[in-house]
């Protein structure tokens, strides 16, 4: 379970997060939806403790991210917006490097790798150097790298960005699989249809604030709109950026 409690973060005069609070439950997919520049990435970066909020707290499985930063990181699997691989290492070596940093021994690493290779269908390219990988192969490797320590909570920043139709479908199926394993899955997106299709809970974020949250049905009721699309537009306060991508 991931909780954001009143997160504030400013860069100079720009308030990227201005009192963000929400909760992502275990066994659910929570979608962080908002137009480009709404503060999604900054919020996620605070959740995975890359950035420290100016004010507020992040709680993961009951642990406060400050001061328990390292313990919180152990419970998180993170696919950041930046998902570069080491191109002179093979996909397997990339994954093993992060497994080592999580303190996993070699036997466990091998076992986890085998499972992820199967779940993500990576057998074809697992022992190739990542230079020249397709976008889909790269994202798969980055996800395997993020999940090798078998975390209870998974945070993904725009996971379908740049993927083709097939890869996007596979990604969605994979997220559902993670949920069905009882994990807490939190991902961000600026594509309304994707969030509507996948999420048990939606958090709509705009201008650094949470403007609406709940199940898709809740959102329709809250905004008094018949369609989800109209509900989002009403919640965000404009149509800008919502349909891009």
């Amino acid at each position: 379970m991931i909780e954001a409690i009143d997160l504030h973060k400013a860069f100079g005069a720009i308030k990227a997060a201005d009192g963000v609070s929400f909760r992502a439950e275990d066994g659910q997919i929570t979608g962080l939806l908002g137009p480009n520049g709404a503060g999604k990435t900054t919020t996620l970066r605070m959740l995975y403790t890359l950035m420290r909020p100016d004010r507020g707290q992040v709680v993961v499985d009951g642990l406060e991210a400050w001061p328990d930063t390292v313990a919180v990181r152990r419970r998180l699997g993170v696919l950041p917006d930046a998902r570069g691989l080491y191109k002179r290492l093979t996909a397997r070596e990339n994954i093993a490097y992060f497994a080592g940093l999580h303190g996993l021994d070699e036997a466990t690493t091998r076992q986890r790798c085998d499972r992820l290779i199967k779940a993500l269908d990576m057998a074809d390219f697992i022992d190739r150097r990542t230079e020249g990988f397709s976008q889909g192969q790269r994202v798969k490797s980055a996800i395997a790298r993020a999940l090798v320590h078998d975390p209870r909570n998974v945070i993904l920043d725009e996971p379908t960005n740049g993927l083709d139709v097939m890869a996007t479908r596979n990604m969605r199926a994979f997220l559902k699989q993670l949920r069905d394993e009882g994990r807490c899955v939190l991902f961000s997106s600026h594509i309304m249809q994707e969030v509507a299709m996948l999420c048990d809970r939606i958090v709509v974020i705009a201008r650094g604030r949470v403007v609406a949250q709940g199940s898709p049905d809740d959102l329709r009721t809250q905004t008094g709109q018949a369609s989800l699309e109209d509900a989002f537009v009403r919640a965000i306060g404009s149509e800008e950026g919502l349909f891009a991508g």
Partner: protein
Amino acid sequence: MKTIGRVFRKETIENLRDRRTMLNALVMGPLLGPVLLVGLLSLELRREIHRAEKPLDLPVAGEEHAPTLVAFLGGRNIQVKPAPADPERAIRDQDEEVVLKIGADFGKAWEAGDPAPVEIVFDASRRDSQGSVGRVRDALETYDHQVGALRLLARGISPSIVRPIAIVERDQSTAASRSGLFLGFLPYMLIIGAFVGGMYLAIDTTAGERERQSLEPLLANPVPRWQIMAGKLAATSAFATASQVLTLAAFAALMPLLPIARLGIRLSFDLRTCVLALLITLPLVILASAVQTILAAFAKTYREAQSYLGVLLLAPMIPSVILMVIPVKQEIWMMTVPLLSQHLLLMKLVRAETILPTECALAVVTGLLLATAAAWVAARLYERESLAISA
């Protein structure tokens, strides 16, 4: 410690697979320099030896005016040949190094006992002609003294009357210290090695990782950032050290090929020298790696980092150039100044002078302290939030 080891191993493997890094850090850097320098030096030395032993061909204009002088020159291993029509022009065009002009009134002045004029025509800005000019001037001065002394004796006066002081030159340079002059470039080469060897890793492990967008996921791992930095710094220092060892090995292998012994110069470049040189420069290797990591942490891209570190390469030149221009007496406080201390110690080492344990210890300890301070600053930079943000 485990984390540092893992980061170190990964960075080492990754960079060993990079042909460009390997070529620059472990081939071009350590080998090209020594080969080029020893090659050039060897050429220069051979020319020097050749010139000192060879009879000097001296163009003389108006040799018929002073046959005794010309005969004397012949006895000094100087062979007189006819001068070109325009001696000044021949010098300007670099056709001749030096030309001797004897005027038509030489004989008249000689007969009258007046100073008889001769002109040495040369270009002082041409360094390689100085040896020839010096030989001509020496020969003329010797002739001048001899004839002067004979004339005084003929008049019953002791020649010593015109020599109120007796100048005796006692050159205190030893064979080994003379070789130090030739090898003044060596400390610089070794110090530069400490900077060049790790440069590519410092860039790749910080700015490069940022540019490739892999730093953010890396820093999301449950390990303190300073340990990640320490692993990277260790890999950078290891490459710099390897590069240094290769540089020393290259010098040790190539130096015996120099014809230095024929100039009466002794050169110490045995195993002990190499080990000591490595010990002396090791703190500098770590310091350089840490400073490079600091600079690379400020850069957003590989190219930007490259340009910062390129400027940093000028730093080790400063003491070398200053000491070449203004040779100063070595004082103990200089051992606390990095770059300067290594330069002085390496110089002593090459000249086979005794290095006091206190000097060596002072240089190593201050170097290590500064390296630690720089590493601490690098660790602080890694703690900054903005470091991880690639975009």
